[in-house]
């Protein structure tokens, strides 16, 4: 197993290299010029050109790319064109809020979606099943920002239970940290919950028709034991896969959620960087997201071996 994990980690290097080349090339050919944004509306073309020179944006593609790769190999993601702060520091500032949001969303999803999916499968065809799946379709169809606004209206403005916006770090206390994340996590989690609930139901339906489930029932095992110990464990592989794939959904959804709830996370940093053509920041974030995604896939593969002992690498 250890050698497999090491092999997979080594295999991420060419993937990251391809991503790096792709992102750098894409940004190089994309329209827009950070020097123009920096110089402002009143600037002369000469001013813009001098800023481009000072930022090194007028150098040939290969020189720029080579320099960037060389810095990355030395653990330096570069410096933001606009803030003059190291990209790694900017990502570090934003990692906490995004990570918090994703963790809370992930836990919420697993806590809500898996039981819902199991119950729906258990009561397949019944009213309960239809209600749960109806909610799933609803959750799947609603855009994140609509859910976000609705939640903010009800729980922040009407009931005044929770704040409308912002983020408080965990170091300031558990509740202050959590209260800022509850509404965004629900908004972001809606689609994810719907997806996982549907997959859980489908996987469970298949497992519940297996002979060993009938045997378990014949042996007189309790319904809970059958569903959550025997059936769920055997249905876990597709569920784990979807939860993993869903992390990509979360990353995309976080961009909108962080804007709606004014959370200073990586999603907002991404949008700001793209709109201003802050190339080093965009490149740093894309690399980070790619790495996270590769890492999540690796974790999923490892989890497979835990939920299904037949899988060995």
């Amino acid at each position: 197993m250890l050698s497999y994990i090491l092999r997979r980690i080594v295999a991420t290097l060419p993937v990251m290299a391809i991503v790096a080349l792709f992102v750098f090339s894409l940004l190089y050919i994309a329209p827009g010029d950070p020097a123009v944004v920096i110089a402002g509306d009143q600037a002369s073309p000469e001013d813009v050109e001098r800023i481009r020179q000072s930022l090194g944006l007028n150098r040939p593609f290969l020189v720029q790319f080579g320099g960037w790769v060389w810095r990355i190999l030395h653990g330096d993601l570069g410096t933001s064109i606009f803030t003059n702060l190291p990209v790694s520091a900017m990502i570090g500032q934003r990692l906490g809020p995004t990570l918090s949001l994703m963790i809370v969303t992930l836990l919420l999803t697993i806590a809500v979606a898996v039981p819902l999916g199991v119950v729906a499968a258990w009561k397949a065809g019944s009213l309960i099943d239809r209600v749960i799946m109806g909610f799933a379709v609803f959750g799947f169809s609603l855009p994140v920002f609509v859910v976000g606004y609705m939640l903010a209206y009800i729980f922040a403005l009407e009931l005044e239970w929770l704040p409308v916006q912002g983020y408080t770090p965990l170091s300031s206390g558990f509740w202050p940290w959590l209260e800022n994340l509850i509404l965004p996590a629900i908004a972001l989690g809606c689609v994810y919950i719907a997806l996982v609930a549907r997959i859980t139901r489908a996987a469970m339906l298949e497992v519940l028709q297996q002979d060993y489930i009938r045997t378990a029932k014949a042996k007189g095992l309790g319904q809970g034991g059958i569903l959550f110990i025997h059936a769920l464990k055997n249905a876990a592989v597709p569920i784990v896969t979807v939860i993993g794939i869903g992390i990509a959904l979360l990353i995309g959804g976080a961009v909108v959620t962080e804007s709606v709830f004014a959370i200073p996370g990586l999603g907002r940093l991404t949008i700001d960087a793209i709109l201003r053509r802050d190339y080093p920041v965009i490149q740093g974030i894309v690399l980070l997201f790619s790495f996270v995604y590769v890492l999540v896939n690796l974790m999923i593969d490892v989890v497979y071996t835990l939920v299904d002992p037949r899988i060995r690498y």
Partner: protein
Amino acid sequence: MDRRTVLKGLAGAGGLALTGLSAPAIAQGASARTLRFVPQANLANFDPIWGTQYVVRNAATMVWDTLYGIDSSLQPQRQMVESEEVTDDGTTWTFKLRPGLKFHDGEPVRSKDVVASLTRWSARDPMGLMIKALQQELTAVDDRTFKWVLKQPFPKMLYALAKNNSPCGFIMPERIAQTDPFKQITEYVGSGPMKFAKGEWVPGAKAVFEKFTDYVPRQEKASWLAGGKQILVDRIEWIVMPDPATAAAALQNGEVDWWENPIADLVPVLKKNKNISVDIGDPLGNIGSFRMNHLFAPFNDVRARRAVLMALSQEDYMRAIVGDDTALWKPLPGFFTPDTPLYSEVGGEILKGKRDLDAAKKLLAESGYSGQPVTCLVAQDQPITKAQGDVTADLLKKLGMNVDFVATDWGTVGSRRAQKTPPGQGGWNMFHTWHAGADCINPAPYTAVRANGDKAWFGWPNSPGTEKEVASWFEAKNLDEEKAAIGRLNKAALDDVVYAPTGFFLSYTAWRKNVSGITKGPLPFFWGVSKSA
């Protein structure tokens, strides 16, 4: 249901919910000594000479002081300067600094700091560049006195040092001001009334300013950038909120105290909330602009440009930008900011009265236009440019023009508009923007009205008549001469259609009623603003 409806619904419901509010929300509880402010944009960098965005300038006015400050009557007043003398021939200016001025690091402000700061500023600022071109020497005489010797008089010297247009003549310590003007500074030490808390800065999310207790305000009453800058709170937090509905909800919920520029759609909701005050923020407003490329057909022919002006309805543009609130806009048959001393309507008849589409079509045909595509750059991520773009597309189609509507983002417009290649080869025929009214009160900061061909702003208009009157204004010795020059300038610029003004519009600002001392002006002024619990 579209997104705008959802926004209004949320904010509206919030307004109703809070109409009878008395208990504070769970999220409230910030100290009355902290003012929480939602700025117009993200403070992405903090070098007011290197980056000239308004948001940077606005924050910089707290941290860096200026030698002179513009007041609400648009006159320069002494700020860091105690006195000045100018020789009879107008070529040698001697300035003396106020005693007791200190930087945030405890060092006194010395003349050498001023010299280094003005040197850096004059390398980037249009007026600074004009002074630099005339400069013989700029030297520190002693710690509190410095001298600026010119080859010929520059009557607008004090205005240049006082103006609020970006970049302002901010004074920094010499070691910082010696930074290349095309590179960013890395230390944010000024002598203004607030210190910048660099450690708490999260670009894109938050910027914090703390009261500078050693600041010695002037004794005069504060007026815009002039007078005594008395800070009445300990801390000002800028909280960036990209989503207007979130900002509206946060203001209603008491999570923020002051929102610089609420969008027009949400203002009715805010007005209904008894805890919130709403008023026009900047009386100098903004001027909408439809900018044509004078280098290529069809707009290289003045008849085509005039045809557009004849057909253009400013009301259509203004309603598209600010909605149906007629208090927020007015027609503008000229280029200069209404209700300011130099406002002029001379030559503005072409923009007045009923729009004559038939005459415009005839003039367009005379210009030789024969259906070639007109590349219209429209930034969709800026509500003002998007609204103008939609109106223009309709206008040009009514004129029988073949519109190549390029829907893109502001970053792309920003770089593409600098292209002087033909429209079919990466260039363009027209784009939209808007100018802050504060930049359009006279020709000094008003780059967009200049018409010196290759050196002019994007579109590169060439109008010798306009340029002649710009020079006349700079040489004018009194207000009457200035007004006369501006009248002639307005006419020349409209005759040649330097650009098409699409109207004058205002915007609101909103704050909680426990905040007092907010004044109208071209930027948010934090001195004199206090907050009760």
